[in-house]
Structure formats: structure tokens, C-alpha cells
């Protein structure tokens, strides 16, 4: 099963990323664990310079911006194939 983490302290953009991720998971009916990481010490452990960050199976796929749904879909599919 995929583990998807949304890194961010809860600003507007972080919530948006979480929404996009959840919607894609529902649309594609993929089961995944979505975790929100809000603690700054945990966030900086991922080597990102600005939030929101998106981590799929412990790999940072994007940070500092809101990815498009198409991008997120590609990353999710990639992660499923490598897994």
C-alpha cells in the first residue's frame, strides 16, 4: 500500500495539496495511507525549503508549489509500478 505524506503546517496551499491527493485516490480507487506532517522538525528532515511538500513512499516528489492533478496521478502510478 502507498504511504503518501503531505508536509506543511496547515496553510492554505497545504490543505489544497491534500484535497488534490485525496480526490485522485478516490477517483482511481487506490488504497493509500495519507499522513499530514505538521511538525517542523519532521518536515525539515525531508530536505525541502518550502511547504507544501508531497512525499510518496518516502520520496519527495514536489515541494513549494501546488502540483497539478495530472502530475500527482503520474507520481501515484509510478509509485504503484515500482512497488
Amino acid at each position, binding site marked *: 500500500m502507498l504511504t503518501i505524506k503531505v508536509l506543511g*503546517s496547515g496553510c*492554505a496551499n497545504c490543505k489544497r495539496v491534500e484535497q488534490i491527493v485525496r480526490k485522485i485516490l478516490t477517483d482511481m480507487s487506490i488504497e493509500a495511507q495519507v499522513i499530514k506532517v505538521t511538525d*517542523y*522538525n519532521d518536515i*525539515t528532515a525531508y*530536505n*525541502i*525549503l*518550502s*511547504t507544501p511538500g508531497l512525499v510518496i513512499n518516502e520520496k519527495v516528489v514536489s515541494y513549494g508549489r501546488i502540483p497539478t492533478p495530472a502530475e500527482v496521478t503520474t507520481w501515484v502510478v509510478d509509485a504503484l509500478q515500482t512497488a
Partner: protein
Amino acid sequence: MNILNVISNLFYSGLGNLASYLAAHVLLCLLPAFYIAGAMTALIPKETVTRFLGRNTPKFVSYPAAALAGSLLAVCSCTIVPLFAGIYKKGAGLGPAITFLFFAPAANILALIYTGGVIGVDLALARFFLSLAFGIGIGIIMALIFRHEDMEHDKATDSMFAAQGKMRRVALVFLLVLVSLLLSGTLKVGLLTNTYATITVPISGMDTFQDFLYNLIPYDAAKGEEGVTAQGAILIGLLVLIGFISWLGMENIFDGFNKWTWISLGLVGITLLVAAVGMTPHAGGLDIFINGKFFGVLLALGISGWIIKTRLTEDETRDFLWESWKFVKQIFPLLVAGVFAVGVIRALIQPEWIEAMAGQNTLLGNLAGVVFGVFMYFPTLVEVPIAQMFLSLGMHRGPLLAYLMADPELSLQSILIISTIIGRVKSWTYVAWVALFSTLAGLIYGSWIDGASVALVVLYLIIFLALLSGMLWFVNRRNTQKLAPVH
């Protein structure tokens, strides 16, 4: 006077302040400012600046780069905290991280434009340059004081700072056009303020409308208060409309652009144009003065519209609009509430109190400004109308600058955040230095305002810097001697 009367007076004072703010100050400076901030966040790749913040960058590059990062990238706390932690733990170290932290709230694009538009360009420039000098100064001091700890910090590679980013030239041009939109609306030069044509629109009743507004929101020009003109009332109406339509057009922008998106942008353009012209209502109708500002704004709007339509990709446009809207949503409501509260408080404070405390450029006055700044916490940008209130109540510009330097840097929020990342001792040392430097900034700027010659001001600065560097050199030498056997 009964209690109800007092309350309704306070309420009117707050409302009047709010109305005159929205009508007079917000439009031509703050509206473009939100779009500039949005464009910066969306269109400048962070890597263009962060690659100068790595561990191996020489100090004379990393400190200015940290300040630049504070000014360009950090309008939102989403960026400030991770970037601060990143620079401190994995990048250039404590010094540049502190410079970044100091510079970001005081000299980000929104704060500077707003200070310039409301209080005056001189104070905005003073805020910018003194923040730059002191931000770098405090960064260097902190790095020297805590050099032991700084050496031990995370030895991880700084690969996260290695990424190269290139800004597209069209994005840069777009930013410049937005800046010129701001300048053409706010600069007070003859070319822009001269009237080139006058149109009289035969609408009757505008003059009675304006008298009605003056009666509704009474003002006292002697106290520095401003009334609401008929033009102001039209603008407030347009603003409310923009807010409403933007909600429809921008909130769901990630599902694609809709017609409301474009309608709201069109309205913003119209509003800026209405704000640019001069209007005088009289019995026969409404005189509209077409001035240089109008043509400047029209030209800048036209070019930026053309760039959005033909040169930016859909993703870029969407990110740009979303970031701008996000800033508006995040900051504007707080600003409205803050300005209202300032109006209420203003009615309660006697000018004599401010006169006595900080009417002169004294050490005590500047300290009072700093202490107020440290212990009061205001949301982003609200410090500006508060500063303007103090100014109109008779505060000297020196202590005013001291307050403006201390308030955003030393909010409770920022102290808490940096405590979790760098520890309590370092945070409080930082607070002490900011307090000292802000007081000094106020004193120096104040003496310049009072007419001290530039040479004297420079002399003060040099004496201070000499003392400081002498002390630091001494501390540094002692530390090095202690460190020597370890090497």
C-alpha cells in the same frame, strides 16, 4: 455624556478610519502590491536565490543572498519557517538564517509598498536600508557569538541548495510591468499628476452625495483625519464587488478558469483606472480629470493583460492568480479589522500622551517605541496603520521607525518559531540585539530628520560600527585561542 454615546462615537471613529483608508490608500498601492507579491511567489523559482545559501558559499555572497531571499520569497510563513530551518541546519548556517529572518517581515514587498504608500517613501526607504544593514549585522554577530554550536550543526550535504533555477525572461518582464503599474499610480511627479483633459459627466446629485458622506463620516483635517469623497465611495463599492466576484472566480481556480475569473480581473482594472483619475463633483455634474496617472495605469494594465493572455502558460497564470488571491484572503480581513480597531483606539488616546512619550527624538522615546513593538503583536501589515496613527498623534519619525523596525521582527509568533529551531538562549539573544539595533535605528534616523548633517549621522554610524567590530574582534580572538588546541 452617557455610555451609549461614547460607544457610538468610538464605533464611528473606527468606521470613519476604515472608510477613508479603503478609499484613499488601499487602491493604487495595495491592490497592485498583492499582485506583485503573487507574481513573485508564483513566477520566481526559489532556486534562483537558494543556490546562494548553501554551506560552501562565501560569506559575502550568502549574507546578501539571505536578505534578498527574505525580500523576494518570503511573504508567507509557508516559506519563511522551512527556509529558515533549512538555511540554519543544512545551509549557510546561523548567521545568514538570522539575516533572512530579520529581513523578511520588515522588507518584503507588501510591507515596503504599504509603508511607502501610507506613511511616506522616506520612511519606507529608511526601513529598507536600515533593515538590510542591521539584518546582516545581527546575523554576523549571532554567528560569532554562537560559533561553537554553529560548527557542530548538521553535517548533512547541502544538495538541497545545489539546484539551479532559471527565471523566464517573460516572467521578469511581467513583474516589471506590475511594478510600473504600481509606480504610475503612486509616484507624485508632474508628468503623472498633471491633468491633460477634463470631461464633465452630467450626473446630478454627486455633490449632495459627497456632502452627505462628509456628514455621515465627520473628520477633522487638523488631526490628520481624512474624509470620504464621492470618488472614495465609488471605489469602496467597486472593492466590495471585486471581493465578491473574486470569491466566485478565484476560489476554484484549480478546476479551471471560469468567466468570473476574467470578470474580476476586468473589474480590478476598471477600479485602478477610476482610482487614478481626479474627480470633483459640483452642482452641474461631475468633473473627471484625465491625468498622467490614468494613461500610465492604462498602459501598464494593457501590457500586463497582453502578457497574461499570450505569453504566460496556463499553469503560470493560474499559480499567479491563486497566490495573489491567497494573499488577499489571508491579509485583507485582518487589515480591515486592524484599521477599524486603530480608528477606535485613536479616539481614546490623548495626543499629549504620545507627545510626552515620544514627541522628541530622545533615547527614552525610541525605547518606548521599541518596547511597544516588542510587547504588542499585530498581524502582518497592521503595524503600518498603527504607525500612521502614532504619527498623526504627534510621534516623532525617529521613534516611529524604531517601532516599525521592532514590531514585525519581534512578534510572539516569530520568537516561538525560532525557539523551536535554534533554542531558547539563541532566540533571546536575538531579541536583545534586535531591540538594541531598532532603538539605534530610530535615534539615527530621527537625528537626520531633525536636521543633523549627513556627516554627523555617518560619524555616529561609524563610531557605533567601530565599537561593535572592536568588541566582536576581541570575542572572536578569545574564542579562537580557546579553540586552538582542539584543532
